[in-house]
């Protein structure tokens, strides 16, 4: 009985935001954002682990909450409550309805990602989350926001395609796609390396980790803080979570792979710190701190992959770490946003750490100046040859137009005859 209640409560946690996302359902409800996260909040507080299975969804999938997941879910609840509070739009706002829909869809996707227990569930909900977040991000935004949104979208699509490949590799190796099974199954097969790299690239893109931080920083720069505070809790934390879930930690030592991740981590820390000190406006502070912190995380992950024993020892820390990262960033963004709103002082907004930036700026300026002329010449040369190369595929593609294809119809029907002959010949 108790089991059932727990399962049902988990189902409500996931379905409730989706239901509210339908405008007709929530039209009479006040505070839909807060309301939508309530079941999740209650579930975080309720003790006990539980799970429920949906055999008809996809190829049968399961959602569950346990000690680790509880951390992440708690973070999600906190971040979304903050975001719902920060979102100031009211029903009189003409874009209110659509914004709220995107908001709730992203929320639903986020909760699904947290609760999923297998790769397919994780992937599907993270897709829902990612694309709805895109909608939420750009909605009603200016040209700069639109550009940031497009950047995010490009990274998102590439990441999804790559992760999809990884998912397929996993699926072709094992029938059962639950994390634990996949971790064991993906070690020592012919496609292990493929899988690792795909998953790594996918999540690096999704989480905006260096060197794919481009979309993250431009999003922080342009998106209003009430939505930017979700960046840490939604795409970044879920990307890190994905890495923890998908990569085979603690099973086997991957030296090269682990080293690469460590290096990414170190580079990320350096990059984040440098930007933090050279060029930081208040608004961009969360962006650079996020890159630094994820760098630490990556360095840890790399170490875990090189020394599996170490990982097993400290594994229990990863989920609290991700959770605190999400909450910390959301709170930071929220606070800065509020400060900026209440004290719109120009100097405050563009405060820079002057001395360091001068020092680095001089060096960069010198390098630029010295290489500029040479680069320009190279560039024009390259442009010219590229244009020539570009014409070739154009010609091939034009071949399909009947005007170029000699006699259009005639050739097409001749091909029809040839196809018939070939079919009969091959059937022999």
């Amino acid at each position, binding site marked *: 009985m108790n089991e059932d209640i727990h399962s049902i409560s988990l189902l409500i946690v996931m379905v409730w935001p989706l239901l509210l996302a339908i405008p007709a359902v929530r039209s009479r409800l006040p505070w839909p954002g807060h309301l939508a996260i309530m079941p999740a909040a209650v579930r975080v507080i309720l003790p006990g682990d539980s799970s429920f299975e949906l055999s008809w969804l996809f190829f049968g999938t399961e959602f569950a909450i346990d000690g680790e997941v509880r951390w992440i879910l708690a973070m999600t609840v906190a971040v979304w409550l903050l975001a719902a509070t920060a979102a100031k739009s009211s029903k009189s706002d003409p874009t209110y309805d659509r914004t709220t829909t995107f908001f709730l869809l992203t929320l639903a996707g986020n909760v699904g990602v947290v609760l999923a227990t297998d790769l397919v569930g994780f992937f*599907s909900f993270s*897709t829902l989350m990612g694309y709805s977040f895109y909608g939420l991000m750009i909605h009603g935004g200016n040209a700069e926001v639109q550009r940031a949104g497009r950047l995010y979208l490009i990274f998102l699509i590439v990441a999804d395609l790559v992760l999809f490949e990884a998912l*397929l590799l996993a699926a072709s190796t094992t029938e059962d796609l639950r994390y634990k099974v996949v971790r064991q199954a993906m070690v020592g097969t012919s496609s292990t390396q493929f899988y690792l790299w795909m998953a790594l690239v996918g999540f690096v893109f999704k989480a905006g980790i260096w060197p794919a931080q481009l979309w993250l920083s431009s999003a922080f720069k342009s998106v209003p803080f009430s939505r930017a505070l979700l960046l840490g809790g939604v795409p970044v934390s879920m990307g890190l979570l994905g890495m923890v879930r998908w990569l085979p930690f603690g099973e086997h030592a991957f030296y090269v792979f682990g080293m690469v991740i460590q290096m990414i981590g170190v580079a990320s820390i350096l990059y984040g710190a440098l930007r933090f000190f050279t060029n930081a406006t208040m608004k961009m502070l969360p962006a650079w701190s996020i890159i630094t912190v994820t760098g630490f995380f990556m360095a840890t992950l790399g170490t875990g992959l090189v020394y599996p024993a170490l990982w097993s020892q400290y594994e229990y820390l990863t989920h609290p770490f991700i959770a605190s990262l999400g909450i910390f960033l959301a709170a930071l963004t929220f606070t800065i946003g509020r400060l900026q709103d209440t004290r719109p002082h120009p100097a405050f907004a563009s405060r820079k750490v002057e001395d360091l930036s001068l020092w680095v700026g001089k060096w960069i300026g010198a390098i630029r100046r010295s290489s500029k002329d040479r680069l320009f010449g190279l560039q024009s040369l390259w442009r010219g040859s590229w244009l020539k190369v570009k014409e070739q595929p154009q010609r091939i593609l034009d071949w*399909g137009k009947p005007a170029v294809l000699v006699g259009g119809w005639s050739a097409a*029907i001749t091909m029809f005859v040839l196809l018939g002959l070939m079919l009969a010949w*091959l059937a022999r």
Partner: protein
Amino acid sequence: MGTVITKIPWGVLLILLPLMGGMACFLWPRIAKILGLVLTFVGVLSVVGLGWQIMSNGVYHHAVGGWGAPLGINLYADGLSLLMLAITALVGFGISVYSSGYFERQHSTRFWPLWLLVLAALNALFLSNDIFNLYVTLEVMGLAAVALAALTGSRDALSGAMRYLLANLLGSLSYLFGVALLYHGFGSVDITTLAVQVKGSPTTWAALGLIGAGLVLKTALFPLHFWLPPAHASAPAPVSALLSALVVKASFYILLRLWLEIFGPLGGDVDTLFGVLGAVAVLWGSLQALRQTRLKLLVAYSTVAQIGYLFLAFPLAMSAGVMAWNAAVYLALSHALAKAAMFLATGNMLRFGGHDRIADLDRVVQRLPLTATAFALAGVSIMGLPPSGGFIGKWLLLEVALAQGQWGLVVIIVLGGLLAAGYVFKVLGQAFTQAAVMHESRAVPASMEWAALLLAFGAILLGFLATPVLSLVGIGSPFGAHEVMP
């Protein structure tokens, strides 16, 4: 209650009701719209009834005239036919709702009778178990589709329809020749009888060549796709949706059915050829779609690419029959929903802005939010992103390809998805921005927006229903009969 439902001959009603409806619409044009809407809705109910019947009694048989094969004609419906009928009914209802707002009075009186007759022909086709009867249904469908494609009477529409008609007639004659050879070689036109009788002989090979080429031409597989983009792009929006979503699938269904029952075991290397052509179609169609500057042509070329995916199942089915065919069916179903939604959404944008130049789409997202959502959701399914029907189809296909180590196909499938993402976002990107030239806008009825949106939702919803749909298609094991183990 249950027994009443299982006793009503739903399959026959699916054919006769739209047939009578078409004639009634012709006789009394005034009530055409109401009649069309009611009858397509009854069609949905009838498919539900048929589904109930099939689930409780197994496959559906109906010996027309009481003679039975081989003398008479048998109607037959298993899981595969049922799903095709269901998707026809759903998309058909969507198209009807859309059309009730779309057509002006003059075109309305012409559209409805032809549309209902196409629907009758489609249902008859999916229910038929007789290759000559299939020829007649193909002709009813083909001629009515051509007439619908030419409905606007513009220069493009007329030349597109003319190409379409000639291609259709050529395909039909080639198919009929194949039927003649099969009949004279094996003494029957009943598919089930032929499945037992047919042996590998020159007759069979020639029949495969003729029937295969004819149906491939009608299905518009590369390189015989030349007629599709002009015809689909110049027709009125609901007709484009009908042609791309359903009519093309009908000839593919026949090819699939005949391959499964008759030619598959004797087909030799034909499946490889189909696979290669399918792969080229995926790439070629996507690339051409990317290059288009007009929205309707872009969507039409996307159909060329998506048809390619269906044919990728042929080489894979050699050793993983059921899985590969499931993938093809899933792709066909989700493409039907998504492409119908896409064409309908395109029709909305065209009506709204008076043009379909992609570069000049003027803030469609803000001004037609439902339509933009419909296009985006349909795009998600076409790209094969989760959670959507297209995702499940591609997923199944990729899984089979990976299991067999067909890396080439894997690359094609993923690349096709990437290119699809390219052309869908090419449209959506422009939909957000303000165009350089402002256009006079014209109101779009709510029914047209909702029809597109609900069909797109259907395509997404299909992504959640993999298990029930795949268990439905297994009824009567259409793919199980000739499974060849490696």
